[in-house]
């Protein structure tokens, strides 16, 4: 049986300044595994956008990264408010981020579209009031 490397990161929803840290950690590990730089870039962007989303919208959550021989899976799980209209949320430029977040340069409505663009597959399971689970796959 082939090996799976599993990485787990708690994403702190209280501390906006630490958002994006998990993405940096993942990147270091992918480099050690000798994964193609272009794939690393995709994973870290998808991961980063997901992390930021969890902090801005959901008060944090966790990220599990599973590295298989043929693919990388990213699972982002939060217990935030959920996404009211997934289809709308996937549109470029659509954002529900508050003004204070926008003033930092976030909330441009590119988070989810970028996550989709940089991954080979993305699924969003979201229930209002319960939370959101995003599963992304990047083929190796």
């Amino acid at each position, binding site marked *: 049986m082939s090996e799976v490397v599993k990485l787990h990161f708690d994403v702190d929803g209280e501390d906006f300044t630490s958002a994006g840290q998990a993405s940096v950690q993942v990147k270091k590990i992918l480099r050690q595994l000798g994964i193609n730089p272009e794939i690393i*870039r995709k994973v870290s962007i998808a991961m980063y956008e997901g992390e930021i989303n969890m902090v801005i919208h959901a008060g944090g959550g966790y990220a599990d990264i599973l590295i298989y*021989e043929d693919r990388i899976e990213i699972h982002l799980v939060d217990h935030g408010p959920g996404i009211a209209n997934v289809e709308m949320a996937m549109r470029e430029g659509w954002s529900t981020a508050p003004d204070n977040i926008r003033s930092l340069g976030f909330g441009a409505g590119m988070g989810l579209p970028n996550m989709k663009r940089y991954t080979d597959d993305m699924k969003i399971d979201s229930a209002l009031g319960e939370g959101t689970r995003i599963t992304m796959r990047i083929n190796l």
Partner: protein
Amino acid sequence: MNTYEHSVSLDVSACTGCTTCLKHCPTEAIRVCDGRAVINPHRCIDCGVCIRICPHNAKKATYSKLDRVLEKKKWKIALPAPTLYGQFENLGDVDYVLQGLLDMGFDDVVEVAQAAEFVSVYTRNYLKTEGIPKPVISSACPVVLRMIALRYPTLQTHIMQLLPPMEIAAKMALEKTAKTHPELKRSDICICFISPCPAKVSYVRNGFGDYQSEVDEVVSISDVYFGLLNVMRGDKMPKPLSRSGMIGISWATSGGESSALFNDKFLAADGIENVNRVLDQLDNGNISSLEFIELNACPGGCVGGAMVVENPFVAKARLQSLRRYLPVSQNFPDDDSGYVPDDYLFEKLPSYMPIQRLSENFAQSLRMMSDIQKLRAELPGIDCGACGAPNCRAFAEDVIRGNAVESACVLLKNRELERQIAEKGDGSS
């Protein structure tokens, strides 16, 4: 095969095997084995942090000895880095330093600060080139270039393909000599850079990409300093030799290169940890709308180099007053129609060196990573350094790579001993 020649080395007799350098090395290149530090040449980027930090002065920069350089060739040309000017107290004029270099035995002097002013003009032109990836990263700091080659493959194309001021100064020196002394052959000439920085020594020895440096020798500022003090004591007036202005001299400190671009869309960071933070963020695509990024591995810029004499902040303050009444720049290309001369450019960037890679084989890498994580969970996580690795994660990697044994962890061994004692205790009672 590692054929890269480094300029940071260890004085074994002075090393006590303490963990200071271990903890500060930005690429985790150092391990302590058998009571002394060992530098991994594949990871070392010649940043000089260990030279600066070693409490026993066991880390040395290797460079050419000045007296050897001076007796070497017919025609010796000194290329002083602008940082040199900041080493002297109450220096009223750069000319005293340049005259001093001549009095020490150099036949000619070409200021790197002068070359830097040309580089500033051409950088402004370079930034207007269509289709280049922005932000453009400065090519001046050799440590940063090597860091990018080791760790940031996607940022390679952002490096400005314009030669650094030291190389331009070397070219200027050769052109000048060809005019004034056409009888001299290249082999009669020695171009000697007076450097604040061990990484420049490596740059000159190894080249960059497929570019080979025109500089022949590199000596350290600290080596030249005392000799210069002696000859500078005289009260004779120096010849008016200096050809640099505010811009050229400002290159010695962080932000100097950027401020010469007359463009506010720049970032300047100094100190290797800050450099990495910027490169990480850039790599994540989170730095937008910048034109230029100036990165200096040493704190404060080149004035913070490992081969200088003076405290970088003092040197910076001195340079401020030194350039106070200088013209903004004294160097303008004869024909500046917005181009960059071809011989100021370099073609090839060094290839990506994935030193962190665990194995050539991906399945093998995955297995190793999995083992590393298991071992990490066992380790105490206090990053004490007693095993000789900088932290528990690095130790786990060393063990799985086969470069260390688990029993080197003092706490793990202690736990094992306690367990054995407890077992024996149970048996006897």
